[in-house]
């Protein structure tokens, strides 16, 4: 879980600059996101960004640091605190052929623009055939001691609504490749950047300007035979951590990273269950009707004859993310909880 230093830095984003790739070419998730935006802005002048404090300040998490100097204030637009209008503007600009990328300062504030997202953006193409290549970006998720107004996982609200592709990458390469795909996609998308991952996870990321990761495809991040953990976002890293310790105990766990949570890649999930016959669905969105509820229902419906155990779920309760570190740790699934759940599954 988060360290004391991180607690102090909880909302302590933005102090430090975005940073650079290491000499070995490793990029943090934060840098990978920024590179995707920069490359697409360079490639296509129809791409522009709007949001609160993304220009002069460079964004609450410094993702867009330096963009206004390169692309100017018309393509890097600081907006008033008016989320409904930020989304509406993105829709209107897209209707006129632009490719807007709107930043929410935190995914928590997507509820403040909810009506334009769910009533206009999500439905307009089905109703009219007009293309809305809009990307809504937002830092999401907890584990950084930022309390319930800066830690939400909004993806189930929008997955239920339909009409918008939703990505929740766990690794820098997936973040860069999926964001570039989203910007090039003619459908609306919501791209959620997990703030716990931003500066923690780094890896070598492609510098090919056309490096893309396909939307709607899950990926097996670790192969295994005894049980499958289906997960996404920050929980992927918890799952991999647990898989290590379980391996030591002789339990071989396969970790499937959904990467895109709407629509979901049922085939990759089912292929894994057919192999392992045991499924743990792990997710940071709330247990009741979080993304994992759909995943579990799909497995129960389509992999019934392959299952040797009930489809288990591990996720936080449907309550506001609490501030106090003792409470937030109890609220979130931890590595130990995951190991316990897999043990239970294996006992069947």
């Amino acid at each position, binding site marked *: 879980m988060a360290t004391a230093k991180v607690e102090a830095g909880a909302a302590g984003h933005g102090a430090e600059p975005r940073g650079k790739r290491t000499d070995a070419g490793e990029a943090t998730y934060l840098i990978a996101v920024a590179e995707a935006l920069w490359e697409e802005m360079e490639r296509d002048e129809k791409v522009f960004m709007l949001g609160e404090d993304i220009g002069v300040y460079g964004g609450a998490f410094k993702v867009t640091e330096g963009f206004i100097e390169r692309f100017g204030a018309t393509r890097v637009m600081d907006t008033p605190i008016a989320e*409904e*209008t930020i989304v509406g503007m993105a829709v209107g600009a897209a209707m006129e052929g632009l490719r807007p990328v709107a930043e929410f300062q935190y995914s928590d504030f997507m509820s403040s623009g909810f009506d334009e997202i769910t009533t206009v953006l999500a439905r307009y193409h089905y109703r009219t*055939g007009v293309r809305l290549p809009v990307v809504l970006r937002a830092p999401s998720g907890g584990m950084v001691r930022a309390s319930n107004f800066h830690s939400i996982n909004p993806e189930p609200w929008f997955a239920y609504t339909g009409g918008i592709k939703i990505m929740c990458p766990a690794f820098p390469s997936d973040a860069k490749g999926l964001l570039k795909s989203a910007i090039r996609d003619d459908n609306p998308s919501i791209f959620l950047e997990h703030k716990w991952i931003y500066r923690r996870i780094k890896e070598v990321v492609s510098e090919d300007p056309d490096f893309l990761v396909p939307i709607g495809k899950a990926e097996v991040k670790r192969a295994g035979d005894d049980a499958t953990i289906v997960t996404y976002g920050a929980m992927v890293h918890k799952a991999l951590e647990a898989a290590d310790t379980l391996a030591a105990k002789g339990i071989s766990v396969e970790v499937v990273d959904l990467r895109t949570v709407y629509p979901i890649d049922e085939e990759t999930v089912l292929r894994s269950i057919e192999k392992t016959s045991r499924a743990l669905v792990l997710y940071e969105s709330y247990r009741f009707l979080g993304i994992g509820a759909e995943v579990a229902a799909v497995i129960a419906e389509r992999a019934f004859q392959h299952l040797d155990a009930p489809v288990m779920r591990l996720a936080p309760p449907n309550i506001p993310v609490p501030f106090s570190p003792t409470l937030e740790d109890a609220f979130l699934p931890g590595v130990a909880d995951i190991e316990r759940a897999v043990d239970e599954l294996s006992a069947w």
Partner: protein
Amino acid sequence: MATKTQKVDARKRPLTDDRLREMLHTLKLCRYFDERMEALYRQGRLPGAIYSGRGQEGTHVGVASALRADDSLFPTHRDLSAQLTKGLDLPRVMAQFWGRIDGYLRGRDGNSHIGDWQGNRTFAVISHLPIAYPVAVGAALAYKLAGDSRVAMAICGDGSTSNGRWHEAINTSAIHRLPVVWVVNNNQFAYSTPNTLEFTTPTIAERAVAYGIPGVRVDGGEVLEVYEAAREAVERARSGGGPTLIESVSLRWRGHAGHDPATYVPAEMLEDYMANHDPVKNFEEYLLAEGAVNKEDVEAIQQRVEAAFDEGYEYAQASPFPETGDVTKGQWVEDGYWEADPGRGGGTEAP
């Protein structure tokens, strides 16, 4: 910046007689369409809902006449007359009302929740009020970024001004001096709710002060007065002068929707507006007095209008329903539904 409500002198800039006659034709078309559709609704021959714009044609025709074909219009459920003025094709509009494949939205949406973005640059109406206002800001932003001279115009009702989106959109457009015209069709009621329960100022136009933009209040019973105010506002937007707020006052002659007897509207008020503020009658009389038309012209226009309605009705009834197999198509661009011609095997029998 002058934000006091000003009386517009419509005579200052007369239109050509052809334009005036065309305007009369549009007014009469909208009026006749509205009356006939209500009759069909009452007979149970029209599915879904109707939101009559009767008595407000001066507002709708006046503002939309000030737009170029490549300007965009963002209307509400009440503003079908503005969309007809912008150029929508009557038969396809009627096909939409009957849920047919030849409607602009291929039967996916109904009644005045219509739009023709690809053709006439009108936004497909969404119920939620005034949800298109922020979208118009985005279109106007695109025009400004492209550096071209196009203008966006959005319409909403008096009641919609009490919604937060109304404030956000106007404020944001004012900050960036975007080429947009904000129209409020003040028909004095929001469903059953009167102006006095929607806002406290004597007029809506004067609220433009809060955004540092010009506000104009005009008589929706006088189409030329409305037109002139809209023309000025559109010109201002085109020339980089930023947004304008136009309040056009009329009365909703009919209920909120077809089902509503609107007993909450004072009888004298209704009588007064129907007698003295009828935009169609007033304009017809004006053109006759000016000699721009004679009785025969008016007769001819009326016949043209009625023929068009009957033709549209036949077209709609003959148009098939969407094919049930297509129901999930068109959710994603890549499924190609909107690029191909839709299936026409849905038949014309309502299930």
